[in-house]
């Protein structure tokens, strides 16, 4: 196994995590750290549990074993998510923005209302300020003027952008993306990648991306974990570019080179 990178200051630490649905184990013995400011890629073949790992990282699933520990700016020390009281968990989750695979916009609300909801729920701002903030977030993702559209009235790429705007609503310092480029044409996918980089630069946020788009992996990732569906555990971690050059694991090399080998 390639050596773990355990330096810097971790934002999220995964300790001996085992994920399972009922009795069927998805992944076991996961151990890695996501550092503050990383663009961390979760990669692996189809069906190896990438999205499930993401759902564990954001507190949607309770691990069968092991812990997920956060160092949230709102708390002095590290907090283990599932050992913390309900209120703490809420605050932790509030500090994470998530872009779901399908956008997951609330279909009964307009885009502006989608972005306004978290603001209304967690702040005491008045309606006008909230509306202005929502417009700003939409403008940030290139959707200025779309405030009063319903999710069903816009295209898939726009839904993802709107979903990103909603993820940014509460200015989280950790952002999670579930297959951001799935279902997008190469140009839109590239634009979304640029947007992710831009946001990371300007907000200093930690970014976690589930993807198997090689172009994205090398373009934006500076750390990663590689999940294997057969052995059901992680088989590599570290900088994807570095892995491509020096990994000794054939499965990792195959993945990163589309099975064409490293060449000579």
């Amino acid at each position, binding site marked *: 196994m390639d050596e773990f990178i355990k330096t810097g200051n971790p934002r999220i630490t995964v300790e001996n995590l085992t994920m399972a649905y009922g009795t069927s184990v998805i992944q076991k013995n996961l151990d890695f750290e996501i550092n503050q400011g990383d663009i961390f890629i979760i990669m692996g073949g189809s069906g190896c549990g990438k999205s499930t790992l993401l759902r564990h990282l954001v507190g949607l699933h309770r691990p069968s074993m092991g812990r997920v520990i956060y160092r949230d700016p709102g708390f002095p020390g590290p907090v283990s998510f599932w050992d913390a009281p309900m209120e703490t968990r809420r605050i932790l*989750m509030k500090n994470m923005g998530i872009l779901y695979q*399908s956008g*997951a*916009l609330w*279909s009964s609300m307009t885009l502006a209302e989608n972005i306004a909801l978290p603001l*209304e729920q967690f702040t005491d701002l008045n309606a006008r300020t909230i509306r202005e903030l929502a417009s700003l977030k939409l403008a940030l993702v290139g959707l200025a003027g779309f405030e009063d559209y319903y999710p069903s009235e816009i295209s898939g790429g726009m839904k993802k952008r709107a979903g990103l705007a909603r993820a940014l609503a509460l200015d989280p310092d950790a952002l999670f993306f579930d297959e951001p480029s799935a279902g997008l044409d190469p140009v839109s996918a590239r634009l979304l990648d640029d947007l992710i980089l831009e946001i990371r630069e300007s907000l200093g946020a930690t970014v976690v991306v589930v993807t198997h788009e090689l172009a994205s992996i090398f373009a934006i990732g500076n750390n990663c974990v590689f999940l294997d569906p057969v052995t059901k555990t992680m088989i590599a971690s570290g900088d994807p570019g570095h892995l491509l050059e020096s990994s000794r694991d054939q499965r990792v090399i195959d993945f990163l080179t589309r099975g064409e080998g490293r060449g000579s």
Partner: protein
Amino acid sequence: MGELIYELGEGISGGGVLTVAMTGEFTMDADFPTSREVVRRIDSFGVSIECVLFKSRDIARWDSSILTFLKDVTGHCSSRGIAWDVASMPGGIQRLLDLASAVPEREGIRKKTGDASFLSSTGQAAMDIFHGTLEMLGFIGDAFIAFLRLILGRYKIRMKMFFPIVRECSVDALPIVSLISCLVGLILAFVGAVQLVMFGAQIYVASLVGIAMIRVMGAVMVGVIMAGRTGAAFAAQLGTMEVNEEIDALKTLGISPMEFLVMPRILALAFVMPLLCLYADLMGIMGGMAVGIFMLDLNFMEYYNMTKASVNLNSFWIGIFQSFVFGILVALAGCLRGMQCRRNASAVGEAATSAVVTGIVAIVIATAVITVVCNVLGI
């Protein structure tokens, strides 16, 4: 039509070499020998065969059925240690056969499809019921906690969400509630009239319809209508949200779906149902009155006075209370099934169906319990 021509030759090591020449059409709708016939033929030669060669002698057309045929025969040959060769078949056939055997089957990957034994399926069913009950109790408990938190002012119901739900389950439901309860009143009056006319006591139709509608039928009919209409809608709405990850999006924003989605629906239905019940009572009595006036020659005042005399306030309150309970039950059933929805499109349909069934069963059980309790208390 596909035909096979067998030629037996002699191999290098003394065994037989069987050449199977294939000619004609080998397609799904053509008629050609089955693999079993070929295997029987191979066995019937008497000499031990060491190799089977498949040759194409002008195969006119072929499709996947020739592949299954060859795969079957060659598989059979391999298992008996007979060598085989398809090298002189058309290139497409060879390539497809290679492709089909390129990735060997992983061990233990095949699903067990056989029927489970009676004991294990009974046990499984019992476990399912147990888990289902636990889940239901958990949901009711969560709903109760959410209600307490609402009373304590920990969160607020958003009026912008609440009123559309109220409208959806009140005004929008009025036409069907009018129709059904009016007809139920009418039917009650008809059934009663047939008996009562024999005694010349047709005036008691008014009492029959009045008491029945106000005490139970109004509430039960509205409950059943709302289970089919609104309970199913709730389940479908929440189920679709679950499928689209919208519920996850709520959770990760720290918004409890129980407080944000379920509570407004329960409160809306609990608030609206007594009103609908009142309306249904009135419509039912009007239905009965139509029968009384047009069939039994009663006049309006007679019917009105008789209804007023026979219905007491207790019955009225029991009816209203029942409809309040039904409202909560129907909303709970709808939301529970919606939240339990799995992540595929057919699951939404199942959730809606199951919400209606659960709702109606809950209504019937609650009616029985309330009736027995009232009886014991002597109300």
